[in-house]
């Protein structure tokens, strides 16, 4: 490409890239075609989709997923851009959460499931890596906040202690940094050693984000993190995601289309286990290329 790569560095103004660079590179064009061929129903992200300087953090290729005999995902191929927010939308049961859970191999925890295809993290096959190291690098926040029955401090420190190798002072410092990053520090700094269950729902969810951030994940997956929260807590978490995207690749599953529009740079639309369309968020919401996407984002179904 002719435009110089400024890998992993963005200024806030370039959050939503306004224009993709012209497709001059024949190699990139070839990849695009190759990606598009295997499954006509699926629209993988073309190479040109990402703005200049945006790297590819994760990639799924022809991913199929089965719960027993029932297939939940069909030929998903997608690239997740580095240090951006990617949102997955779609009606309930469309497979977006299932797909999210293949990215950090949380799908392994359910018995009787099977994965076909390929998921890569920085070019490495996640199913070939040690599962605990994958989950350390790809953190996850769940729909229901799930703090452990420990103090606020111990919750955040859990991942650090499990992974080991840090002194007490380092743990304390990382805990503080994570709580600051998750915008919870000011609210809890005077009660770090009280039970995490004393926090409000929104605070608990931010605590779970802090807990995930403490181990310095490269990617943070969020599975409908705001679905049980009130609008104020929701907006706090959304602001948080926007700041976090400067240093972390974020993938969020949401039922709330306004939320996807507010926080994400790229949006994928899932329907019946297929990735129907993946594009820049503004494109998806303003001029989707497929009829199903348009019907969904305009509220005609789902």
């Amino acid at each position: 490409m002719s435009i110089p790569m400024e890998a992993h560095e963005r200024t806030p103004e370039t959050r939503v890239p306004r224009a993709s660079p012209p497709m001059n590179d024949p190699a990139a064009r070839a990849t695009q075609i190759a990606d598009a061929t295997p499954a006509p129903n699926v629209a993988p992200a073309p190479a040109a989709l990402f703005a200049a300087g945006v790297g590819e953090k994760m990639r799924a290729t022809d991913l199929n997923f089965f719960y027993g005999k029932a297939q939940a995902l069909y030929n998903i191929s997608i690239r997740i851009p580095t240090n951006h927010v990617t949102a997955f939308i779609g009606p309930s049961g469309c497979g977006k959460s299932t797909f999210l859970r293949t990215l950090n191999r949380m799908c392994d925890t359910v018995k009787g499931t099977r994965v076909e295809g390929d998921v890569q993290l920085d070019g490495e096959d996640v199913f070939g890596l040690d599962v605990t190291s994958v989950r350390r690098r790809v953190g996850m926040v769940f729909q229901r906040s799930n703090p452990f029955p420990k103090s606020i401090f111990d919750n955040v420190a859990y991942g650090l202690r499990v992974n080991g190798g840090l002194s007490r002072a380092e743990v304390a410092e990382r805990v503080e940094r994570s709580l600051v990053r998750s915008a919870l520090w000011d609210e809890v700094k005077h009660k770090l050693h009280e039970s995490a269950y004393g926090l409000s729902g929104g605070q608990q969810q931010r605590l779970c984000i802090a807990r995930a951030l403490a181990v310095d994940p490269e990617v943070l997956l969020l599975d409908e993190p705001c679905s049980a929260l009130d609008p104020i807590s929701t907006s706090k978490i959304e602001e948080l995601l926007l700041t976090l995207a400067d240093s972390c690749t974020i993938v969020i599953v949401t039922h709330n289309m306004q939320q996807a529009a507010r926080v994400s740079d790229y949006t994928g639309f899932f329907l019946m286990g297929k990735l129907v369309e993946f594009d820049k968020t503004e494109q998806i919401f303003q001029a989707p290329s497929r009829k199903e996407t348009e019907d969904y984002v305009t509220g005609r179904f789902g």
Partner: protein
Amino acid sequence: MHSSETLKVQGEARVPGTKRNPGARAFALRFFSGDEIARALVTISAALILLVTVLLVYELWINSHLAREKFGWHFLTTQVWDPNAGQFGALAFVFGTVVTSFVALLIAVPLGVGAAIFLSELAPPKLSNALTFCIELLAAVPSVIYGLLGVFVLMPLIKQYLHPVLKGTLGWTPLFSGPFYGPSMLVAGIVLAVMILPFIVSVSRQVLLAVPNDQREGALALGATKWESTWKVVVPFAQRGIYGSVFLALARSLGETMAVTMVIGNTPQIKASLFAPGYSIAAVIANEFTEATYDLYVHSLIELGLVLFALTIIINGLARLLVSSTAKFSVSST
């Protein structure tokens, strides 16, 4: 909080007449709708439990007055038990009861909690259910059978294998010194351990199964291994329930009579060695009640019952205190 109160007020206001017609009519209305009947029934049930406990203590208290008046607090501090001389002291029995229960817990708690963790976290559900059924069957075996097994199986085995090993390695401690003839506090403790194991396993397993899955996922998603997630998140989450199972087991072992009587040796003495015979409160009551030929003897035995009751309450209370000081962040599950 605020909004739910508002809702409640609105809900009441919507039922016409409840506020304006207090008294007989409103009561009759509620009575015939069943609410008052149900309330009365459950209140009576709860009151009956309290009543039975109070009556029990009252009877023990009244029927032990001769012994209490004669010996006072010395009853608890002397270990002489001589019906011929009319001298009675509870100390040796208290010692035997506490030591055997402690040995039982020492063996049964790690085994039981370990088994419960395996059954709830690692075993495939079918295997888990089958094994749990087997373990719960253990609870249905009459205690006299455990006593027989203790006498005819456990004692020879210990004499032949365990005693030489313990004596060779730990024989220098008073705990494992001296000869082993068979009936002893060690055998009683082991038999009790087997008897209380089903309680610990089945209750702990239930509690562990009730831990929400999002706790496991939360830990795994941070890069914890299966064991780290189980030991550092799932077990702490369930710890109150697990302690509950241990209390249940403890209460059971303190009061166990038949099996202990058969294997403890029935010798009222205080010896440091676990190989030495001893005596427990429940055992002496069972053994000597029919032989108690004069009132002071009977009253002393009944006072032993009172002591056992108090001992159970004190030990349970202490255990609960210990738990509430360590488990302050735990969720009060089950």
